[in-house]
């Protein structure tokens, strides 16, 4: 008769999937808040996005406050 036992073991291995997912979140978030000048919305709205700058204006105050270069 077998007995099912559950134990916790500590492993040092960090899942590559987690590193990949978090790296994507890091790069995307940093670009949106720190550097986008209409690039992301231009994928949908074309050249007009570089004039409207919706994301840039939305992140404008944080961009200045967090030390990123702005206009």
């Amino acid at each position, binding site marked *: 008769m077998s007995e*099912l036992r559950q134990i916790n073991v*500590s492993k040092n291995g*960090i899942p590559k999937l987690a590193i990949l997912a978090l790296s994507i979140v*890091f790069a995307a978030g940093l670009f*949106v808040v720190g550097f986008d000048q209409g690039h992301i919305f231009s994928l949908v709205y074309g050249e007009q996005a570089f004039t409207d700058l919706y994301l840039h*204006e939305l992140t404008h*105050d944080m*961009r200045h406050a967090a*030390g990123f270069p702005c206009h």
Partner: protein
Amino acid sequence: MKTSLFIIIVLISGAFAGLIHGTVNFAIVEPYLDQAIGIENQNLFESGEEEDTPEFWVEYEGYRTWQKSGQILAGVILGTSVGALFGIVFAYSRNALPGNNDVKKSLLLAGIMWLTLYIIPFLKYPANPPTVGDGETVVLRAILYLSFIAISGFAAVGFYQLSKKLQNNKKLFALIGYGVFITAVFFAMPENPDEITAPMNLVNEFRLMSVLGVTSFWASIGIILGLFWRKLSPQKETSNYN
């Protein structure tokens, strides 16, 4: 390690810390932004680029409300983003960090990353309010700022790796090495090309508030992720044995 739990606590910690950062900025940085944008508007009127008309102010109020409303949302996005990097570094360095619990370890790492990724680059390229900054140089300034952050961050990792190869009584040389290297980079990197034309007391007070806001983020992420890690131990993997 429990992959989903690890990702979730890292993202939640970053979002919470970013929420705190955005809220702090909303309270202490916004008045300086309003003041600086007021100067910017006066410059536009004086140069003839804009006219002081009711239509101007209607349009101004519209986009200014949009900008202010984004402060906290952008804080959450930036916090989640930088928190993701923090989570990766914490996962890799946790066993090597001194301290007898995860909160102390996490806070120490947050302090190191605050210093190497924010304070040192800030000393070279400090935050500026609106009215300071030429649109023509924004790409150059972004490259310089990001480059300095990357150089400082990778140098910190590199000198840490070097310290592991040194005997205990010589580990201090790695820290001195980082100090010498980043000082050399500090003086070698080009200056911010933009001239500051705004009043310096406004610029300096804005910079102080900016530092307080970013510091609130790093302190928060250190505490929050440390608490989550201590409570949920994502590094432990549950296995079934018959």
